[in-house]
Structures are given as C-alpha cells and as structure tokens.
C-alpha cells in the first residue's frame, strides 16, 4: 500500500472507535450520565490534540473532514475582514477546495482580481516576490498557503510568506492537511487546518485552529457547537479515534519521518534511472512520505493498473485517471509532465504492524522499471 492519502487507520484508533460506539455515542450536551461521559471524552480528545498542536483547547474545533476545515477557516477570515475587501491570495498549487471556491467567488462577482493564484517555480514553491506583489493589491483581505504540497511534497517558505502577510495586516490560513503527523506542526499561521487522515486517524475528522489573537467570524447564524465555529456535530467515536491516533504517533513520528524520507529517496533514485522520467518537487526540502513522478509516453491509468496487478497501490494525477479532462493542477502549475503520472503517499509504519514498509518500497523500486516498460510498450502500439 503506497497510497495512504485516505488511510488506513492506526489499529489502536480502530479499537478506540469500536469501543466508542458502545460507550461514547451520547450527545455531549445532555445532562444524564451517558451525556456527561460523552462530554468528558470529547473534552479529553480536544485537550490531547490541542496539546499536540501547541494551542489551547478552546482554539480547536472539529470539522467534518480536512477540506471542510479549509473552507470554514477561509470563510471566517474573509467575513471578519470584509471591510478590508474580498480579495483572496493563494498559491497556484493549493488544495482544490480552496482554488475552486476562490474561482467560483471571483466568477460570481465578475471580478478576476478577487482571487489571485500566485505562480510557483518548477519545484512547486511559491514565488515570494510575486506573493508580496499579490498581497499589495488594494482590497486584499485574506491569504492561504499550504505548509507543504500534499501531492509533490515541496514545503512552502511559510515564515517568509507569513511575515509578508503580517506586514500588511493580512491574515494567513495555513493548510496542514498533508503535514500533521508527518512533519513539524506549523507555527506560522493565523488559522490552521488539518485532517486526521494524515496522522493515521479516520476519515471525516478535520481540525480547525483559530487562535484567540485571530479575527475570525462565522458567516452564518450563531452556533453552540465547537466554540461557535461549526454547525455540524462532531461524530464522537471518530473524534476519539483521531485523538487516539495522534497519541500513538506523538512520540514516534520523527523516527517514522526519517525512515520515510530515506525510502522516498530510494524511489527517487529508481525513477531517475528510468529514461524519459520527470521527477517534480524538491528532492530534500519536502514532506518525508510523498513522491510524484511521470514517465514520458506512458499512460497513467495503464501504469496504475499495471502496478496494481503487481501488488502495488499508487495514485495518479494524470487526466486519464481522474475521469476528467484536466490533469493535476499542481503538476500543470509546475510545468511538470502530467501524463504517465503516479503518486506515492507512504503510510505510517505503525498503521500496518504486520507489514514491513521498507520492504514494500524496496520491492516497488525494483518492479517500477519493468512496469513502466510494459506500459510504454502497450502505448507504442497505438
């Protein structure tokens, strides 16, 4: 399994969740014993995660997943800054939840200046001069940048980008959907969004961090849930699973990350040895567990299928695999080859206690040249 973008869940978290369906299902707002127990469990989970993320419990809200945290984080910043303007500045390689909403808003307003997508270099790193220029346009209210790109792994210059925002009084939302549990928790942000899947937790749990210093306001009627930031109740067993997964990796993630970094390097070497390959992203200043690569004159869908046949699960950013005409916007923005693309997201070792992740990667690196050759031969006949 080399495509851990949506799981799997840490075994200890699975146990916690199974137990929680028996004892942690009640509405935490009720006054009976079951309700009080649920309330205590929710508080404990929030405290554990807040502690791990270096924030206060009341600054952390649970959302129905990572993309929901991104959307909510952004709309609250925009609403609070509405007197400044409506312009949003992002990089061109942000999460599609951010880009699609930004483009939609700009389209609805008939104002292309409402959303600026700042260009990135061939490594997917945002151009800081262009970033500063985009922030300087009057009416700029909010900015958003990922700590690191979940597709190619490249880390963004967060401290410098945040400093430029701070100088202009523009709040920055940081997308840590691919970062938490894999890389140091970002400290440079005004709002932070995360997804439990990145640290071995279940799908359907996002975290939104809004520090007390940040001007954030919900653009909707008042809510009594999650410090007034969310109007969808967290699913308590899932939240408990997310917190348990966090506890499990809190002491081990650095070792896991060092090993993952070396394993990805191993694959990079194998890819570079294949003729006509494209290996976008920063080789070193990157997430430890992510790699994307493309092979000229190979079909991405066929490559995923061929690797699956050989027992390797990988993802792809090629258009032909996404049932859409458009290839990965990240690859396109970098000028990387978009066809014949595959994407690896290594699981945390702990989520597969019985499987040696290193051996998996070693086998994959050995099988890749053959698989690429087979797929290229298929295509050459067309």
């Amino acid at each position: 399994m080399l495509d851990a973008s949506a799981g799997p869940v840490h075994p200890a978290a699975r146990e916690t969740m199974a137990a929680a369906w028996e004892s942690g299902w009640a509405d935490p707002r009720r006054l009976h014993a079951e309700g009080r127990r649920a309330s205590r469990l929710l508080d404990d989970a929030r405290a554990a995660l807040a502690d791990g993320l270096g924030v206060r419990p009341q600054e952390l809200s649970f959302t129905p997943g990572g993309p929901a945290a991104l959307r909510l984080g952004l709309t609250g910043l925009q609403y609070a800054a509405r007197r400044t303007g409506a312009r949003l500045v992002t990089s061109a390689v942000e999460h599609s939840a951010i880009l699609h909403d930004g483009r939609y808003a700009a389209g609805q307003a008939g104002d292309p200046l409402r959303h600026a997508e700042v260009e990135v270099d061939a490594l997917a790193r945002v151009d800081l001069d262009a970033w500063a220029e985009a922030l300087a346009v009057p009416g700029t209210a909010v900015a958003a940048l990922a700590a690191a790109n979940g597709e190619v792994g490249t880390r963004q210059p967060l401290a410098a980008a945040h400093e430029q925002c701070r100088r202009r009084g523009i709040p920055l939302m940081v997308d840590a959907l691919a970062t938490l549990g894999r890389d140091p928790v970002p400290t440079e942000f005004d709002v932070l969004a995360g997804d439990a899947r990145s640290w071995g937790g279940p799908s359907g749990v996002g975290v939104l961090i809004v520090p007390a210093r940040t001007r954030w306001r919900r653009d909707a009627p008042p809510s009594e849930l999650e410090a007034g930031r969310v109007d969808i109740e967290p699913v308590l067993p899932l939240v408990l699973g997310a917190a348990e997964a966090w506890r499990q990796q809190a002491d081990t993630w650095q070792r896991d990350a060092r090993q993952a970094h070396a394993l990805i390097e191993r694959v990079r070497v194998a890819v570079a040895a294949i003729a006509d390959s494209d290996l976008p992203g920063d080789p070193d200043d990157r997430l430890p567990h992510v790699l994307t690569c493309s092979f000229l004159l190979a079909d991405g869908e066929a490559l995923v299928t061929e690797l699956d046949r050989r027992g390797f699960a990988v993802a792809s950013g090629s258009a032909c695999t996404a049932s859409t005409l458009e290839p990965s916007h990240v690859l396109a923005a970098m000028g990387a080859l978009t066809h014949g693309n595959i994407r690896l997201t290594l699981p945390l070792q702990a989520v597969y206690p019985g499987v040696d992740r290193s051996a998996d990667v070693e086998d994959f690196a050995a099988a890749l040249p053959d698989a690429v050759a087979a797929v290229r031969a298929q295509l050459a006949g067309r």
Partner: protein
Amino acid sequence: MTDATSRTPREPNEPLKPSEPLEPREPQDGAPRAPNPVVLVDARGLRCPLPVLRLAQALDSVPVGTHVRLLATDPAAHTDVAAFARIRGMTLVSRTDEGDHTAYVVGRLSATTQATASATPPRAAAGMPPAAPPGRPSTPGAE
C-alpha cells in the same frame, strides 16, 4: 478513456507539404537556409497521452531540422508538449491558440534527442547503485 480516443478517429501523422509559412525561431540554428520543413500532426480529439505520442512518433521519423506542427484539443497537451520538449531536449518553437484547438510547433534540432534519463535527477542519483539510498543520517531498515 479508451472510448474517448476511439470515438474520434483521425488520420494522425499525415505529412503535409510545407505550405504553412512558419518563421523558424530557433536561437542556435545559424544556417541561413530556407524555413524549416514542417510536418503536420493532427491529434485533435485524442486524449492524453496520445497527442504527445503522435508528436514523438512524428519527430522520430523526420530529419534533423524539421519542425512538427501538432494540433491538439486535449487540455493536458498544454503542459505536456512543453514538458516533452524539455525532457527530450527539443525546442517548443510556438504555441498558438487557434480557437477550438491549439497548435504547437516543436523543432527537432539534433540527432541526439532520443531517450535520455530524467533531466533533473536527485543530486545523489548520479552513479549511485540503486540499492544504496543516499546520505541521510538514519538509514531505512535500521529501525
């Protein structure tokens, strides 16, 4: 995606007499000869990676100095033709929006543009035996 490609069968690789008056714009080509001969490849309606495949096939079969003019509707070609040229060491002479399709002119400038390893290998890759992951303080498998 196979049905999408077979839905619009076209004649690819159809050579054209160099009727298109294209001004060659390669910087290194010092030869003051007539405009480069042009071969037309019509890949309209084909989806990735077929437009680039047709382009590559055409470039393989033409003499050095020839330009190939590729017509494509696939949005992925926008990125991939440029990436193809970069990886193969060829020149993307022009890219023109022509309404319902885009025209790309790619020049074959030298004979040595066949398959080469990645243009940007990781620094540690050169000459490394594949079994040795390069210089990180902690090696895989050590845990």
